């Protein structure tokens, strides 16, 4: 049957609310491993020695197994302790809806993220940064500048500022927000110092 529409965040929330209740332990220790093992058998997946697959059949079988994993298993909400379900046609509608190109950053520092289709000759976008690793407050700008000044780096991803004005940036406290705002200002400053003010962050 045709889908009503691609799912929005609100549709997803509504489905979670109406979804079946499942204990989180059952999800983690029974449902996920059992379904993944069954699908491995069903699609006869054995990657062998290659790190990157060289045959189309393995790629297609893995994709179909993952698609079936999502459709047959659903998705779990840890606060509501409920599972939503999604149909294969809704998955396909969601794929169709997703933009296939993005512009990250602005002006002369903008980069275009678009499908490479296999190992094409165009390099991937390089997003440089500490990836959430802890960074001292007093050298935060310099650490980000070391990434922004690299010729092959296109966009930035920041580290986590360990303290803000000497206070630990503890999760779920006002200092976490203050530190986050300081991180954004520091990353912008790093971009400006390297002459790439429009860089995506």
């Amino acid at each position, binding site marked *: 049957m045709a889908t009503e529409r*691609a*799912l929005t*965040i*609100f549709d*997803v929330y509504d489905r979670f609310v109406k979804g079946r209740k499942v204990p989180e332990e059952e999800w983690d220790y029974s449902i*996920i491993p059992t379904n993944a093992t069954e*699908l*491995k058998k069903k699609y006869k*997946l*054995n*990657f062998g020695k*290659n*790190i*990157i*697959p*060289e045959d189309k059949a*393995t*790629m*297609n079988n*893995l*994709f179909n197994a*993952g698609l079936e*994993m*999502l459709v047959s298993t659903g*998705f779990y*909400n*840890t606060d509501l302790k409920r599972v*939503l379900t999604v149909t294969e046609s809704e998955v396909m509608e*969601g*794929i169709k809806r*997703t933009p*296939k190109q*993005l512009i*990250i950053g602005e002006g002369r520092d903008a980069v275009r*993220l*678009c*499908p*490479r289709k296999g*190992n*094409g000759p165009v*390099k*991937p*976008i*390089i*997003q440089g*940064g500490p*990836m959430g*690793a*802890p*960074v*001292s407050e007093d050298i935060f700008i*310099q*650490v980000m500048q*070391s*990434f922004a000044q690299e010729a*092959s*780096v296109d966009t930035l*991803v920041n580290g986590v500022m360990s303290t803000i004005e000497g206070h630990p940036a503890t999760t779920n406290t006002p200092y976490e927000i203050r530190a986050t705002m300081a991180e*954004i200002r520091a990353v912008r400053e790093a971009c400006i110092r390297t002459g790439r003010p429009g860089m*995506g962050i």
Partner: protein
Amino acid sequence: MRGCDPHECSQLNELKIDMAGLNMLAGWTANGNTVMIEQMPMFGGYCGGIEETAICDVATTLASFVLFSGNFHLDGPIHIRWGITTSRETLQIAGHVAAAMDANTDLLIANQYYTAAGPCTEMCLLETAAQAITDTASGRELLSGVAASRGVTQDKATGMEARMMGEAAMATAGMRVPEVNRILEKMVSSYENDYANAPAGRTFRECYDTLTVKPTEEYRGIYDRAVKKLSGLGLNLLG
């Protein structure tokens, strides 16, 4: 943050999300922001082995777009014992998942980097190069990193690791996959027995002049040696 800056929301392991994530996404999508959904499937965790983790990885990647309105997905298969993304098993998961997604969709996919070794070490640069080669040759559109020393030690990240990530990606783009697999076999074999004793490396202050933000001569020398080693393994970063 501008609309063109990726706003990051994380799923939870495995095939899970919480209300905080959904609420952030409701605001960002209403505002028209660029959304990056992140998830790091755990090899050896709830999913189990390599193929099982890859199956969950494809499912979670699809969910980022279909359920959570993501614009691109940031992957990161991680090894439960070593806490890294550069192990043979996690590279194999990432390589297979990217190739599967690439062969069947036009969705934009990325991967993130956590190495065992710290900055200013050859091992850290080789781990980074191995993953950049894997991600590039398997068709990923964006590489994000590097969090050296497993991303848990203070000030253990510098621009030099990202230089290796970018230059290895540039050298790999356009190569044939069987040739890439042969190079990867040799590269991963060169470091995979050293996870337990991975060199801690140096902090940012020890790797850079913090006033001029220029890397030290020591680190540039180590980088050059890593480039030479990669060249010997079949990947030419100088071309």
